[in-house]
């Protein structure tokens, strides 16, 4: 148990972080190069004003037309993404471990708040799962990979709350938690999860084109 703990909380964290940062940077750079080759004009009409204007409309709940058209999906998606990103960064246990390893620290969430946010993420995963099963058009477009990806995202949250509450088997849950968290970080740059890193660029691109070329709104 000590060996696995040491591995999962030591070297594997580094592997996960390096793959995550390196993979993200690599894909973004490749994308920039491809854009220069295939669609070089984007560099001419790219505008920070129109890019930011579009990004803003898409990160404000119900700021775009397609969001207003599907209110339930929008609400769940917003709560899900906020909790997904904020919870691990400001979780007491994570901040404490980082302070132990690197001597740096920041404010952290009260445990009860972290618990609620974790449950919201798990409920969000269930909602997306049900949507893929129940809604005809979405089911038709779903691949097995989509379901595996949902599992990869849900796993750190399910095992995290499990070990925190010391439900039976919490020691194994703790180890599985660390490994699944690392798996998720490793998967991020190479799967559809990458849309998180792409978001500012796709919106910036669409926003610049819509605002600068077509003189239209894209939200």
């Amino acid at each position, binding site marked *: 148990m*000590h*060996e696995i703990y040491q591995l999962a909380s030591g070297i594997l964290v580094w592997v996960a972080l390096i793959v995550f940062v390196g993979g993200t940077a690599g894909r973004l750079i490749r994308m920039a190069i491809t854009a220069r080759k295939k669609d070089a004009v984007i560099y001419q009409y790219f505008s920070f004003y129109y890019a930011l204007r579009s990004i803003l409309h898409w990160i404000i709940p119900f700021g775009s037309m397609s969001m207003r058209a599907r209110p339930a999906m929008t609400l769940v998606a917003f709560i899900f993404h906020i909790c997904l990103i904020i919870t691990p960064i400001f979780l*007491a246990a994570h901040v*404490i471990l980082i302070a132990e390893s690197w001597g740096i*620290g920041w404010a952290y969430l009260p445990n009860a708040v972290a618990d609620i946010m974790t449950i919201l993420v798990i409920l969000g995963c269930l909602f997306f799962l049900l949507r893929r099963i129940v809604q005809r058009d979405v089911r038709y477009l779903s691949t097995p990979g989509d379901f595996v990806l949902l599992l990869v995202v849900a796993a750190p949250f399910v095992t995290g709350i499990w070990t925190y509450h010391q439900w039976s088997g919490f020691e194994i849950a703790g180890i599985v938690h660390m490994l699944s968290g690392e798996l998720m970080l490793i998967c991020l740059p190479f799967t559809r999860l990458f849309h998180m890193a792409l978001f500012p660029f796709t919106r910036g691109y669409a926003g610049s084109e819509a605002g600068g070329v077509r003189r239209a709104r894209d939200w």
Partner: protein
Amino acid sequence: MNNSRAKNLWLLIIPALLFLAAAVCAQGYITKVEDSGFEKHTRPAVSFAHDAHNEAAGIESCNTCHHMYEDGKLQDQASIGMECSSCHLDGYSGRLELIRVYHLQCKSCHLDQKAGPVQCAQCHRKEE
């Protein structure tokens, strides 16, 4: 020997002996780490049967934990009777710093020796 002087000496010795006895007994009675530096607790208290733990772990000198430094050098004498927080709580990030040193001291030895708890829930155990 001057009578009143001897009396004064006893007045010093008796409390000193009492203090030592209390100190030696107190460590035997410690079953939980409850540093007064933590104003509020956010986790279950850590079980720590002081003497039994140190015997089982084969720790001989008190200053393995109750250490004392001078000019950055570890001293032979120990800081018995002082809570960790009396030296390790300062600045605005004090609370996190105090948590950090507790974890560092307890956990790193457990990891080195591959014995003793290392996960949050193993130390901060909920009462059954």
